[in-house]
């Protein structure tokens, strides 16, 4: 009776899930906290270089057989993500308010982290993203700043992600320079992609293939994508999506040097009297506290859990939290904002089939200064609404909500609907933050995340501008009917960025340009929290490039005994 029972999976040899095991009392070279997009890369690089690595992952180790096309399990039960009943959080818009218990973030909980269920849009940032504040001017009252590294510093590592993780695509007119072509050709265009091409052409813009971390042909022992249509929110059943679970983690395990310790929830990074990190205290599956000794620690727990762990690691030497002499840990939280337009077409689009996006438009990546807006954005068309979600809210806001008229609309529109996404810059603002809730604790008794977030007025103007242009696009594509969802300040995010920002100045940043904590020589932080600016959405490619680069630097430091 299950939906999948009549489908045959291709035969995939199971991936190895037993690893070398270290004893907590043995001092390993590195503890890596988190096994997601960043942690997986760091673990693979460090263990390949011969170091002893323990990866602490709070969730379980799943495989393809655990992944199902089930909306209730995924979106309502959070089968792959953080469990709000055990790990609650609070939210407020401004520091003046008392935060309320309200789910405000989601991330992957398990080996592979969020890379298990992401859409796999793998845009590189462009040169401007690293120096936009000095080129275009910063904005008073924000932390809009240049990065301490340039696109050229990161380019070799973007290429490493392309080849070692696996990205499919073809360069477009606005691509930043690349040292090597894509390893895989782009996926075939869907009707959403063809319609975007049509609309873009009418507006004088150019649509080009979307770079996706999904195998478009057999790659590195993994299957070619079968275009099942269940990317966003779901795990890939055929090992085509280039998640850490199936790319870098197996390589880390194969070194025989890397232990993946699952169901291990990091509680505190411990330090000694000299202010050096000595290891990580964590809870095992039975909630027993265990201390794993290490020569150095790399925190890759995501832009919300990483600052939380540092803030929960305070001590006499670090009274405001570990590596927080700047007071910046947890601050400058960025989501990825955007402006949207929904559209219905005359013929079948069938957006439910295939990968999320096949074409993108970057003509508005940088905007005419006369508009007075900060940043820019890029577009794609998608239909990422699963059947239940469409029943709840996929129709025009004025459409009937029940009865035969409602049903006729569902029948007519499900296959004819798409959403134009304008992914944009979001500004770093000091008052947007992850902090510790003064009252609420999780099921382990650890202070919970308190999120404070309100989109900057300038961002809301930018989102509106992109929503308007998204509407122009779908209308130019020939939409029968189109509408714009209201632009509101966000209260929920799956992109968690900027909370341990990178910089040259220890007074205004948490990590240096090599992802080493300014305050602690043997502590490194690399994940979405490192980002200084938001790019134009799609942060994972840059997070993984940073992770490859940081690992390279860490290996150099370790070999030269500079840790």
């Amino acid at each position, binding site marked *: *009776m*299950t*939906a*999948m029972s009549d489908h045959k*999976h291709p035969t995939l040899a199971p991936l190895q899930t037993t690893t070398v095991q270290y004893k907590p009392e043995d001092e390993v070279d590195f503890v890596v906290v988190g096994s997601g997009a960043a942690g997986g890369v760091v673990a693979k690089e460090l263990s390949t270089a011969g170091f002893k690595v323990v990866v602490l992952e709070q969730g379980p180790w799943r495989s393809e057989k655990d992944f199902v096309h089930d*909306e*209730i399990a995924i*979106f*309502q*039960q*959070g089968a792959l993500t953080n469990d709000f*009943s055990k790990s609650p959080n609070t939210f407020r818009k401004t520091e003046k308010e008392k935060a309320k218990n309200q789910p405000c973030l989601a991330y992957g909980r398990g080996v592979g982290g969020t890379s298990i269920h992401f*859409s796999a849009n793998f845009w590189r940032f462009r040169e401007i993203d690293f120096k936009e504040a000095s080129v275009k001017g910063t904005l008073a009252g924000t932390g809009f700043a240049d990065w301490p590294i340039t696109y050229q510093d990161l380019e070799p590592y973007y290429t490493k992600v392309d080849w070692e993780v696996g990205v499919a695509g073809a360069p477009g007119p606005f691509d930043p320079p690349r040292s090597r072509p894509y390893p895989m050709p782009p996926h*075939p*265009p*869907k*009707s959403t*992609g*063809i*319609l975007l091409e049509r609309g873009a052409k009418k507006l004088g813009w150019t649509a080009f293939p979307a770079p996706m971390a999904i195998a478009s042909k057999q790659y590195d022992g993994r299957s070619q994508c*079968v*275009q*099942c*249509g269940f990317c*966003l*929110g779901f795990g890939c059943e055929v090992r085509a999506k280039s998640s850490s679970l199936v790319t870098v983690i197996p390589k880390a395990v194969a070194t025989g040097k890397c232990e993946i310790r699952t169901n291990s929830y990091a509680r505190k990074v411990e330090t000694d009297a000299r202010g050096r990190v000595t290891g990580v205290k964590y809870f095992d599956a039975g909630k027993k506290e265990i201390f794993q000794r290490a020569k150095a620690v790399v925190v890759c727990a995501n832009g919300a859990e990483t600052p939380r762990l540092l803030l929960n690691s305070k001590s006499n030497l670090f009274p405001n939290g570990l590596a927080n002499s700047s007071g910046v840990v947890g601050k400058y939280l960025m*989501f990825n*904002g*955007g402006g949207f337009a929904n559209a219905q*077409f005359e*013929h*079948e*689009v*069938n*957006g439910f*089939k295939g990968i999320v996006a096949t074409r993108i438009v970057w003509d508005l990546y940088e905007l005419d200064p006369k508009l007075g807006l900060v940043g820019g954005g890029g577009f794609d068309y998608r239909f*990422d*609404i699963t*059947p*239940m*979600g469409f*029943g*709840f*809210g*996929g129709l025009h806001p004025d459409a009937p*909500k*029940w*009865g*035969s008229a409602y*049903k006729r609309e*569902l*029948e007519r529109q*499900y*296959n004819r609907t798409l*959403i134009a*996404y304008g992914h944009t810059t979001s500004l770093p603002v000091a008052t947007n933050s992850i902090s510790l809730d003064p009252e609420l604790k999780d099921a382990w008794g650890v202070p919970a995340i308190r999120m404070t977030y309100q989109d900057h007025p300038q961002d809301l103007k930018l989102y509106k501008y992109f929503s308007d242009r998204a509407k122009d696009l779908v209308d130019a594509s020939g939409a029968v009917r189109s509408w714009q*969802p*209201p632009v509101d300040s966000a209260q929920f*995010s*799956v992109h968690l960025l900027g909370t341990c920002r990178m910089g040259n100045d220890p007074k205004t940043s948490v990590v240096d340009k090599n992802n080493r904590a300014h305050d602690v020589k043997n502590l490194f932080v690399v994940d979405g929290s490192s980002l200084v600016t938001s790019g134009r959405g799609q942060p994972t490619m840059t997070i993984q490039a940073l992770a490859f680069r940081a690992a390279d630097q860490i290996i150099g430091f370790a070999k030269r005994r500079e840790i």
Partner: protein
Amino acid sequence: MSNLSRRNFVAALGTGAAAVWLTAETRDLLAAGARAAAAAKAKAPYKVLTADQAADLDAATSRIVPSDSTPGAREANVVRFIDESLAGFAKEQKDDVNKLVAELRRLAAEKHKGAKSFAALTVAEQDAVIATMEKTKGSHFGDLRGMTISGMFADPKYGGNANKSGWKVLGFDDHFSWSAPFGWYDRNV
């Protein structure tokens, strides 16, 4: 839930009217689905709902998604989905369902003097009751609609969406693989 943007989508599904079925363990769901399939076939008695409650919910969910030229909530076994869920992962929503049925009966009695149940009304009267609920703040319309949509379109293993009838209404098929052309526009380039 007018904004279906990526950053709001998960939140909207998790916290909106759809949150009727929020507290389950996945393994319970799987077991519930298998039981539901068997129970529907055997016309077994309901586990949680009384026969009267089931009759009113059958009538009400059938107004949300009627059976007409294509299958509706009735053919999708939406009431069986509700019963199985209440017996398993959605125990905490029992009170909401009791209140919903009570509201349906109260409004039925107002609409048609002496009516003892919602199911006893004519279809036109039932539609008038639902229309009133939709317009009334604090009514259980959202729960009724949420349950119906969940039972219509969730994976059939939960006991609703029988024979994928809900998915057929949409034109969705949970096929394991697709290949180009996917739609009219990439077929007619």
